[in-house]
């Protein structure tokens, strides 16, 4: 994991990339993380480590990323603006770089009221666009947000951001994405896509602006495990659109989990056909073990070996 990002090399070589998500433990025991890394290694190019997702305290994403790397899985360290001001963001990033982390994904973060410390003060000193700018500047031209130079070799990260391709108004989403790209985002992972028509509309606007040529876009997918999950994603998750046909398919399936996997594989095949989609980001929260099967059935295995990247 020293040197440059393997994920960057896969994407820059024009290979269709695969990333997934790994949630750090709600404690300091990292044996589960090592097990997940061993299971996912070789099936994905990199794995996102979430940063206290939904504002629930978990092992730090920087530490979890280092543990994954030690187990042979390249991390994408997620960093939210919710819990850190600009001083902490930059300090944590220097620490991450010194430990070998090369991929950073900048997010605003879920509101603290959803987590297990709803009385916490939300920081949001920077937002995700500003954070992308700060991270890019640390490496190039090697300046802190205040304008002072970084001592020694500047930390050049492969900087990523997210966008929700299905939320209305789509045009505003794409304009915001453009800001992230101008701020320095080199890869973009999207919120999970179930509604391909909506996503195609989003990608059309992305191509009009040429954003797919300035950054690598990884479409998000999340395999459905049950009809209940499908309904929950449709009704209760803000900004996720699950067409009724998808819910119906899950409801009538004899084996919903198998159906969810089949659906996910079909979605990946359809997403690969869309111009400007450079990879997929598979979000199988608490179901990481299904990722290798999805990758294999999508014809995305084997991944480019580390030395060939």
């Amino acid at each position, binding site marked *: 994991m020293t040197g440059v990002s393997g994920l960057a090399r896969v994407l820059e070589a024009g290979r269709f990339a695969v990333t997934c998500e790994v949630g750090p433990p709600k404690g300091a025991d990292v044996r589960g993380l090592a097990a997940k890394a061993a299971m996912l290694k070789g099936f994905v190019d990199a794995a996102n480590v979430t940063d206290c997702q939904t504002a629930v305290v978990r092992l730090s994403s920087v530490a979890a990323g280092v543990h994954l790397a030690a187990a042979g899985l390249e991390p994408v360290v997620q960093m939210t603006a*919710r819990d850190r001001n600009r001083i902490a963001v930059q300090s944590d990033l220097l620490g991450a770089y010194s430990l070998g982390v090369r991929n950073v994904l900048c997010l605003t973060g879920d*509101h603290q009221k959803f987590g297990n410390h709803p009385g916490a003060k939300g920081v949001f000193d920077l937002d995700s666009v500003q954070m992308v700018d700060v991270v890019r500047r640390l490496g190039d031209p090697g300046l802190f947000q205040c304008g002072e130079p970084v001592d020694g070799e500047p930390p050049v990260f492969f900087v990523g951001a997210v966008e929700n391709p299905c939320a209305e*108004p789509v045009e505003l989403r794409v304009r*915001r994405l453009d800001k992230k790209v101008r701020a320095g985002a080199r890869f973009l992972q999207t919120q999970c896509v179930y509604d391909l028509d909506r996503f195609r509309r989003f990608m059309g606007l992305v191509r009009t602006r040429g954003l797919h040529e300035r950054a690598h876009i990884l479409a998000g997918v999340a395999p459905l495990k049950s009809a209940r999950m499908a309904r929950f994603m449709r009704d209760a998750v*803000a*900004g996720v659109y699950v067409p009724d046909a998808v819910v119906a398919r899950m409801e009538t399936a004899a084996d919903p989990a198998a159906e969810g996997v089949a659906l996910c594989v079909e979605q990946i095949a359809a997403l690969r056909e869309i111009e400007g989609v450079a990879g997929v980001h598979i979000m199988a929260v608490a179901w990481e073990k299904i990722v290798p099967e999805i990758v294999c059935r999508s014809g995305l295995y084997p991944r480019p070996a580390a030395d060939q990247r």
Partner: protein
Amino acid sequence: MIVTEAKSFVLVAAMITGFRRVLVAACAGCTAVCGVGGERQAGELADALRLHARLRGEVLDTEVRGVTRQCEPEFVAELAPAVARAEAVLTLGCGVGAQFLAEHYPGVPVLPGVNTRFAGGLAAPGVWEERCRLCGDCVLYLTGGVCPRTRCAKGIMNGPCGGAAGGLCEVGNATPCAWLLIWERLERLGRTGTLDEIGPPPDWSGAQAGPRRSGKGGGVE
């Protein structure tokens, strides 16, 4: 306007327990408009506190006095004779008024009878809503007259975040997403171009270094 709410009666009664003579100080400014701190409310609160004390076999004498504004020393000074007769002052002014009273009368405990909530306006009959966080660096000219620091739950400058859905903010309570409001309004004005600028991180150095000061018509610093 500074929007205030009455503190719970139980808490107020507990705060004044042990004082035999209490001045209930009303303010004819914002708290009166909010219906919690005017002379009428002060009178009602004093009556209730005396009744409460009597039922518990305690002795309580109250006096009610109001001033035009508790946030001005000249008006605060008018309370001097009444304060001199009291063992404690229960003020229905906002947090600013309460502190001005405490500064002016160092020898007597000053207790807050209201919670000072926010700077807001009447959004619907009887409902005040926050509109300004008093950041000191107004960006409304960039955001179509909608304050992102106040009305966006994350106070961000480059929204909307991923949580906005159906026009609403992810925090719920049927709160509109401020950034969708900003977008709509600028679109109507044909000025969405400002949304393509990367809004800079705010400068908190003025707002977080102790109390801010200002002179008439401009800064004193």
